[in-house]
């Protein structure tokens, strides 16, 4: 007779699972409400989701640092907590953007909000584990939910975007499993810390390095897809264009920061093992990504596509920080994304405010530059707000992204990579051109005759204004909260051992 499995509840440490369970339960509650009574207004679901996110946030803040749980597959270290906070804040800013004055297809389904919460749970699993299988499950749960969220926008190019993203995501998943399989084959374990120990012992065996590099390459390719790094970035502009503006802004932050944390866990292991190939190839990819995306952004005619390429370029910046692999550069990743989040979400929210149901400004694009011409005369506040976001993205001090940028540049200087800091500087200068282009259109060009306040401010509503107000405030006042933020982040990164 088999021995009954004895597990005490305390050993499971279910507290580590609380945040994800809250998100999942929230999703189920929303589905149940829909079962009981149909045709409830979207505002109910929006507010419920916000509340659930806030509870989730409470649970996350209550986590003990460096706690393990659930058969040791959960790892709640400092970076896991910081990432979850960033994810939750971004989500709390994103969801109220559903309360537009015009009706959009996706928000009439409660499933949208349920899926969103499931995605949140997936992302939270993904960042708080060092077990390759749980990471994979989290990654896939969140990705599958995200594909559906994109497709729900119900336009032909959003279907295209979803299918494109899905296909690319499937390929990335394949790479991930192959990479993990190689690592498992080499070490007999799926836990990153144990893999690291075994590889440390075996790295000098003949032929071993080639296998390690092989595994690392598969994983790198997989995360390059997720992070839209060159040469795996080609899906990003189309997917961003097809998704609704807030979702595109959300995608440029949340799935990326989650993928950055996992890359930090995986690739810093290789860098610590002195596999130089990994560091070099990440650096090469990062540099090409930031430069190429910048050059592509120069020639875009649509602001949303420009912002898509600019997000790719920013991801390149942050990927370089992963390759530098010091405590400072790892803190810089979170500082950068924590600050970039507000600015980028704000910029995409401005596009959302000005979004029409139909393409009234251009045959192909929703947000051509011409649409914003002369905005200073039509709606001065809107123009000033958008200009602040653009200046911030260009890295003009004292706006938020500047602080992240100098921190990354400074960490590059610290390890002697002056060339990298200079390339970053030059790239910032190139990027200033396309951000300025929008400012030039808004401030220095005459408005076209068909544009009035209604046509530009088409989709505005109080909740959207509130979100914009919060993001602008965070962008402008960042100089006052960078200090505590940086202190918290550095502490969290340090206790996690990165």
């Amino acid at each position, binding site marked *: 007779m088999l021995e009954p499995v004895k597990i005490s509840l305390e050993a499971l440490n279910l507290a580590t699972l609380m945040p994800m369970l809250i998100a999942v339960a929230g999703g189920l509650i929303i589905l149940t409400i829909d079962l009981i009574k149909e045709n409830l207004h979207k505002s109910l679901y929006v507010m419920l989701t916000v509340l659930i996110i806030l509870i989730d946030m409470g649970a996350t803040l209550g986590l003990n640092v460096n706690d393990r749980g659930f058969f040791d597959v959960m790892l709640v270290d400092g970076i896991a907590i910081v990432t979850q906070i960033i994810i939750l804040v971004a989500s709390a800013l994103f969801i109220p953007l559903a309360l537009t004055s015009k009706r959009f297809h996706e928000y009439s389904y409660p499933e949208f909000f349920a899926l969103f919460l499931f995605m949140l749970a997936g992302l939270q699993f993904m960042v708080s584990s060092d077990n390759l299988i749980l990471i994979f499950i989290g990654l896939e749960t969140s990705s599958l939910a995200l594909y559906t969220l994109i497709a729900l926008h119900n336009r032909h190019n959003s279907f295209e975007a979803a299918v494109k993203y899905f296909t690319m995501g499937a390929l990335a998943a394949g790479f991930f499993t192959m990479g993990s399989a190689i690592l498992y084959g080499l070490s007999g374990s799926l836990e990153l810390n144990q893999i690291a120990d075994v590889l440390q012992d075996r790295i000098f065996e003949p032929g071993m390095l080639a296998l390690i590099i092989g595994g690392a390459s598969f994983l790198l390719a997989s995360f390059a897809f997720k992070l839209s790094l060159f040469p795996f970035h080609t899906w990003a502009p189309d997917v961003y264009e097809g998704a609704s503006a807030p979702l595109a802004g959300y995608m440029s932050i949340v799935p990326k920061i989650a993928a950055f944390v996992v890359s930090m866990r995986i690739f810093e292991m290789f860098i610590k093992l002195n596999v130089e190939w990994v560091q070099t190839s990440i650096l090469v990819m990062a540099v090409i990504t930031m430069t190429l995306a910048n050059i592509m952004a120069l020639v875009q005619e649509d602001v949303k596509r420009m912002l898509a390429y600019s997000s790719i370029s920013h991801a390149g910046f942050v990927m370089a920080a992963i390759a530098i692999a010091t405590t400072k550069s790892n803190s810089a990743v979170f500082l950068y994304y924590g600050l970039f989040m507000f600015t980028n979400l704000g910029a995409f929210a401005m596009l959302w405010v000005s979004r029409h149901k139909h393409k009234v400004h251009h045959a192909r694009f929703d947000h051509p530059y011409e649409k914003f011409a002369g905005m*200073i005369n039509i709606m001065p506040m809107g123009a000033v707000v958008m200009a602040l976001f653009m*200046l911030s993205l*260009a*890295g*003009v*001090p*004292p706006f938020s992204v500047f*602080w992240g940028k*100098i*921190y990354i*540049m*400074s960490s590059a*200087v*610290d390890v002697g990579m*002056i060339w990298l*800091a*200079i390339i970053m*500087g*030059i790239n*910032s*200068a190139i990027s*200033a*051109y396309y951000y*300025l282009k929008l*400012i*030039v259109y808004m*401030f*220095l*060009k005459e408005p076209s005759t068909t544009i009035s306040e209604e046509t530009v401010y088409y989709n505005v509503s109080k909740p959207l204004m509130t979100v914009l107000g919060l993001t602008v405030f965070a962008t402008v006042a960042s*100089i*006052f909260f*960078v*200090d505590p933020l*940086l*202190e918290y982040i*550095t502490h969290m990164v340090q206790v996690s051992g990165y």
Partner: protein
Amino acid sequence: MEHILSILIFFPLLAGILGFVVDKNSAKAYGISVAAVEFLLSLWLWASFDTTNAGMQFNEFIPIISQFGISYNVGVDGISLFIVIMSALITLLGIILLDERKIANMKNMIVSLLFLEMTMVGVFLSLDAIIFYLFWELSLVPMLYIIGAWGGPTRVYAAVKFFLYTFAGSLIMLVGLLSIAYLYHLEAGVWTFNLLDWYQLDLSVGLQFWLFLALFAGFAIKVPMFPFHTWLPHAHGQAPTIGSVILAAVLLKMGTYGFVRFSLPLFPDASVQMIPFILTLSIIMVIYTAMVAFAQKDMKQVIAYSSVSHMGIIMLGVFAMNAEGLGGSIFLMLSHGIVSGALFMLVGVIYERTGTKTMSEFGGLASIMPVYATVFGIMLMASVGLPLTIGFVGEFLVLLGFYEVSPIGTVLAGTTIIIGAIYMLTLFKRSFFGPVTNEKNRGLKDLDARELTALLPLVAIVVWLGVYPKPVLGPIDTSVKKLLVDMEYKARTPEAKETIISLQRAKEEK
């Protein structure tokens, strides 16, 4: 008033934000009042300034990002004091000169000017590298808008070129600043961007060289040194009068000020090493742009190029590394600000009346507009460096100081006074003397009260400081001497020490 520097920096910002509420038709009056208060505050700063103290005064220190060593740190010494006063004065007079009938959307103009004033004052008062960089970059934004919104036909191109050119240079400078902070961290174990702490940093000559070059990228583009000067004629050509005035009078000084505040005291050895390099560039800049100025047909371009040429003389003075040259170059920054500001105002005046700046359109203006011609004449003489005008003092001191470094260079640089006299007098002759060539010009009105209010104070200063420059030269000299002593103390290589000392001694022996 302990916080006078913060008040000076943030008063225009606050006034600018509140200015959004002010009615369009009252915007100019609002602007004048705010700028006047700011100017009075700056005079108060001068009054309470201790002229015998060579170091930083009225220091304020508030940590902002303590972990990374960034703090709000301001202070003023003899070098920055007068540049701040000059910025406030030029902004005030520039706003007075604005013509309400010609400038569309006056409120936006006033608000941008007030923001610009904040950044200008901020740059000259900051003692923290990042805060300095912050104001430095921020100053581009209002200027971009001023050129782009009120400029000539290709204003957008000129504005964007101005922005990108200076932005690119200053990012290289940022890498340099971050490296210095890192080196300081290596040596002292703490992060700081405090300039006064950085002055204590002992750097190897090789490092100094590279860091000097990194900062050079930012400063040289701003000055603008040859061959990085190409953005300036575009910007001047397209900018509205007020834009050109502030650009020439104040924004260019940021570059030379950067050399004095950062490059010299931080990298004394590299600075000495680089003397021949800077010298060559500056002399080329001085002579070449003077000749280009001579070839211009547009009055404003003549003044734009002559202004670049004079910036070259300022650079020579900075790298003369003695009290005369350096003090003279700081005085020349002030006089160049006042004179070129006034000249751009004068060109603006005639442009507003006739809609053209081409010299061949004019002729015999002296008989139609005698007062205008007189003021123009005085400013022109000051620009050429006629004795008893403000231009003479600075130029003479710079050349005197520079003689110790290179007699031949001094002769070459001195030729600009001659070339300058030629192109300026040609300009004056063609436009003001002789018969009235263009019948359209007969009906032109002479300066009115508004223009006189803006210009007469400048005329008064030109004569006053030309005759009696001591109240300004005194404090400058005190701070400059301290700077040179610190440099000599800090210099590592005996050659650099010797150069700096011998340059001082040669002077004292005379």
